[in-house]
């Protein structure tokens, strides 16, 4: 539902259509691929103890990104969903981020840098901010998960086994 809303808005606005037409000339193929076939779009239960939600960006700026992670009892990201309202690069950055973090520990995922995403998607300078938004989103989701599970502490990933036993 949310996904449809976002995509319909993008397509129905004439201003948003212009970058779409320009994509064939300006966007890298990888951005187009993620834009046309976004991975892991959707929503997890934000109220669940196992789910961390990151919501970043500002509607006024035209980019809002929601990224959610589900963490198993070993401290590994077992499921991940996103929903982004924004430009093609922002959608591609978050889509690629979901592919990247699945199966990672929280510690590994928290170390992902915007430059990794920008490089993979060959983002031009002006679009580096989109990859930064994706980095902010995963960090915010991890922070939310940790605030829900304070017993895991900031070193949850390192001591995941011990923490899980303790819990």
């Amino acid at each position: 539902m949310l996904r449809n809303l976002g995509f319909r808005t993008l397509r129905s606005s004439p201003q948003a259509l212009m970058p779409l037409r320009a994509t064939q000339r300006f966007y890298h193929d990888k951005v187009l691929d993620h834009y046309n076939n976004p991975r892991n779009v959707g929503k997890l239960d934000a109220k669940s103890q196992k789910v961390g939600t990151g919501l970043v960006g500002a509607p006024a700026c035209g980019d809002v990104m929601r990224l959610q992670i589900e963490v198993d009892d070993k401290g590994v990201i077992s499921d991940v969903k996103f929903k982004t309202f924004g430009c093609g690069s922002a959608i591609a950055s978050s889509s690629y981020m979901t592919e990247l973090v699945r199966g990672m520990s929280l510690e590994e995922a928290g170390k992902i840098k915007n430059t990794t995403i920008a490089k993979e998607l060959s983002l031009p300078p002006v679009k580096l901010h989109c990859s930064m938004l994706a980095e902010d989103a995963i960090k915010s989701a991890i922070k939310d998960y940790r605030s829900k599970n304070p017993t895991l502490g900031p070193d949850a990933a390192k001591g995941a086994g011990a923490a899980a036993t303790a819990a």
Partner: protein
Amino acid sequence: MIRSRLLQGRAVARIISSRGLSTQQYHEVADECLESILAAYEALSEKVPEVEVELSQGVLSLELPHLGAYVINKQPPNKQIWLASPVSGPKRFDYVDEKWVYARDKSTLGAILKSETLQAVNQELGLDLE
């Protein structure tokens, strides 16, 4: 008369940060900032022809030899200036105490540009901006 109005303007600017700026004040200080950056790089490009700079509709595009393409743009909805640097990546600056400051590490737009320019062309950038 004009001088005292200018001084008043400065006093006002000193106590307000980005969030307290009116839209009009934001555009004034942001335009002034981009124009001073433009002027500094135009002056530099006379010594180093590989430096290319252009300012159009609140977006400044800059090309530094060995480093690559920079984009510095106004972001009016949150009264910020955004920088995309091929060296230090993307940053968003708020106007605080007459400086454009990156909230996360307190670095300033002027200092970043001066340091990366020195790295690129081994010349000081004559930029009167912290």
